[in-house]
């Protein structure tokens, strides 16, 4: 399986996306999926999407469709609260495996 690319997004890019990035990496690895994760501030999404071309976006702040057209977006609050975290990781893993 190829290495997938995940963009994590939060308001400032210093706190929650950092935690979400680590959790995404860890939980997808546990599901046999290797990912490269890049973090972005909400204001940088459009430019990072162009350069990094992510397979999915995990966000803790809203991301508009126009900033990342056609890219599957997952709300990542579960990675911060721990509630529903496994279900979210399962959903992301299933989506990525389907891309193969």
């Amino acid at each position, binding site marked *: 399986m190829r290495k997938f690319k995940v963009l994590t997004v*939060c*308001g*400032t*890019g*210093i*706190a*929650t996306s*950092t*935690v979400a990035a*680590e959790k995404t990496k860890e939980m997808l690895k546990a599901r046999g999926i290797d990912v490269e994760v890049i*973090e972005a501030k*909400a204001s940088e999404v459009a430019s990072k999407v162009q350069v990094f071309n992510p397979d999915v976006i995990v*966000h*803790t*702040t*809203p991301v508009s469709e126009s900033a990342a057209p056609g890219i599957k977006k997952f*709300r*990542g*609050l579960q990675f*911060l*609260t*721990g*509630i529903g975290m496994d279900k979210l990781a399962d959903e992301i893993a299933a989506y990525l495996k389907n891309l193969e």
Partner: protein
Amino acid sequence: MTKFFFDERVVHIGLSAVEDIGVLKKMADALQHAGYVKDSFSQAIIQREKIFATGLPLEVYGVAIPHTDPHHVEVEMISIATLKEPISFGVMGNPEEKIAVNIVFMLAMKDSSAQLELLATLMCIIQDTSILKKIYETQNPRELMALLSTSMDKFI
């Protein structure tokens, strides 16, 4: 992880304030008086909370983790407040949705990569209802600091 030290001057027990902005202002002012953040921090954190809310709906308690851009920060610190009465904050990712918040961790952070472990540990703490309950019920700032330090050690 290098040991993180809290500061009693920015630990608030039973804080009361008018709305979320009042909480942010009181906590930010204390951080500024203690020299951890610049004059601009207070306004920046209030503005950011309006656009990017930080309330986290957890199992029992509501927690908010307000923070803002690193250039408003002089020295890293985490300020903690338990609220006398729950105060409404917007939910992260959806500011229109509101939750009642009981505990606030205000993060004065400089550099994300250096702070990652600290943030990850803090996230473990807020996911642990029994620790949150102890934090919320503690009536003494020093006890609260000791409790947090011990809890952090547990998760490293």
